[in-house]
């Protein structure tokens, strides 16, 4: 691997898994302060954020807690006021836009829908960072596209135009496009919101499969805390632009967290598996 030289002198508390083995982070945000040019005041403040390598990390939090903002900073769509983001130990700024797009795949929350493009054509656009300005598609591109279409399970709609698909099928097509990008790290902003349950599972299963088979690191914003708790290896809970807690779901998800962060009263069952049972909304504090 080219990326062996890591910052060893960096002071940090190593994350360890159950067996005490150190876990490397694919993406690290360090001392981040984020704001938008159009509004004043810091939106997100985060001293340290780790997206562990080869794991699925879910970012959760209520609306306006800064999840999307944080994801934008991680994907270089938003320049942090202070702090740095490193991917595999290297500063995001040291990459050109195309180099970064070969390391890091991003799916934004709203994708302006183009009616008249076929699914296959859309997936081929995922190969953009691998092609020159005027280059045609080569064999590696064809293989990556076929693989992405197969992984997302959208072979039967590959010639259909995007405008004729349901919301869930559309989302799968967009995900296939990001998969065709063939990156080691994937950032997804609410890929399951607005989808029916069947397509929610299709999307999550695709992500899980990708993670298990190819060792892809995934950071995904999920709206549904119950779903996130069951699905992700790690949770990052955001509240008011700050990192409330993070770690494996069993440690992070508590009734206290649900009250503090989501303002709901809920029961959490840990046996036989982690389950969140929301009861009612708590009064505004």
């Amino acid at each position: 691997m080219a990326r062996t030289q890591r910052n060893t002198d960096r002071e940090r508390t190593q994350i360890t898994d159950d067996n005490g083995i150190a876990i490397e982070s694919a993406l690290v945000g360090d001392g981040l302060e984020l704001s938008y040019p159009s509004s004043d005041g810091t939106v997100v403040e985060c001293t340290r954020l780790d997206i562990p390598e080869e794991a699925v990390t879910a970012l959760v939090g209520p609306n306006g807690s800064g999840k999307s903002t944080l994801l934008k900073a991680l994907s270089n769509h938003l320049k942090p006021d202070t702090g740095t983001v490193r991917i595999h130990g290297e500063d995001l700024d040291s990459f050109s836009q195309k180099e970064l797009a070969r390391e890091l795949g991003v799916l934004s929350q709203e994708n302006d829908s183009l009616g008249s493009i076929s699914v296959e054509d859309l997936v081929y656009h995922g190969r953009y960072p691998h092609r020159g300005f005027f280059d045609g598609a080569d064999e590696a591109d064809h293989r990556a596209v076929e693989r992405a279409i197969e992984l997302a399970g959208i072979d039967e709609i590959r010639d259909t135009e995007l405008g004729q698909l349901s919301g869930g099928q559309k989302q799968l097509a967009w995900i296939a496009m990001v998969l065709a990008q063939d990156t080691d790290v994937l950032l997804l902003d609410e890929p399951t919101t607005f989808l029916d349950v069947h397509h929610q599972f299709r999307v999550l299963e695709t992500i899980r499969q990708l993670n298990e088979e190819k060792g892809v690191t995934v950071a995904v914003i999920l709206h549904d805390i119950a779903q996130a708790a069951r699905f992700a290896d790690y949770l990052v809970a955001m509240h008011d632009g700050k990192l409330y807690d993070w770690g494996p779901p069993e440690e992070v998800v508590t009734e206290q967290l649900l009250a503090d962060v989501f303002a709901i009263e809920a029961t959490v069952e840990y046996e036989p598996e982690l389950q969140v049972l929301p009861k009612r909304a708590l009064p505004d504090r």
Partner: protein
Amino acid sequence: MAGAESVGANAVTEQRDSWITGTLVLFCLMSMVVTVVAGLIQVSFGEYSMTVLEAWKAVFNPAVIFDLNAWVSFLFGTERPDMSTNSIVVWNLRLPRVFVGIITGATLAVSGAIFQAVTRNELASPFILGVSSGAGFAVLATLVVFSGFAPFLPLIATLGGTLAFGLVYSIAWKGGTSPVRLVLAGVIVNMVFQSLQQGLFFFADDLGVVQTAIAWITGSLTGTGWEEVRIAILPAIIAIAIALAGARQLNVLMLGENTARSLGMRVERVRFFLSGVAILAASVAIAVAGVVSFFGLVVPHIVRNTVGGDYRRLMVGCVFAGPALMVTADVGARLAMGGTQMPVGVVTGLIGGPYFLYLMRKQQSMGEL
């Protein structure tokens, strides 16, 4: 094994060429037929009387078509070799106008198509984004005031167009642009430049200049010859070639700014570069034919309705449909009124305006692509 693999890959490659559809091929062939027929009608009539047959014979006269010297003289302005009067009338007076029509039609259509993708706005065109009036003002100023710079007209037109487009974009920019803001800013800048154009008339020395200027502002192919072809052909070919090659970039731009950036595109730079190409294309047309209204707006729409929104198809379609419509409109402009010639811009405006209205009524939403 290796053999089997490569066969499979070939099959996939063939499949990938599937963006060239039957509709597109048919559309382009039809456009070509229309261009040729309209061109032939154009060369058949005129003040110098000859029969239709004589005119066509002159067009397909092998002594001219395969005469290298003749082509050199047409394209580089050297002395013309001897040829019959019929050939001179057809090849030197009537055909160049058709060629200028072809060039302006193709460049204006391509320019409009690029602007529509770059701004992601269905209403965008060189006319609405101020490029036409800016380039128009620059050319008019050159004709009326700085007549010494006439050989550099395309360059001057490009500068004027760039200035106007820059103005429109910076007025509309507010942490991003929206279709409506762009159109509004375009209207404002258009108005300013049109006032400037009208102001320039008062500096014109004689009526002849004013008449040329008016023909020029409405967009006219009257009196264009090989000289215009010579001015326009090279920048036109460059602009069209880049536009065709950049079609995939435009497709990615159409996915939206966020997605394009995630895919590794330097969005601002690509947008800027392709806008430059579109301005060049429009300026080429404006420098030789003046401001032909509605053309850059309507032609991409017609093509999009026929061959679909994929820019690889759309660009090719525009390169063929633009000339067909421009040459046809010019036939109308030159021959419909009997003795008097109208500027072709009047015809395109009269046909393009209502057609666009029809599109607006038919479609549910208009504006954002």
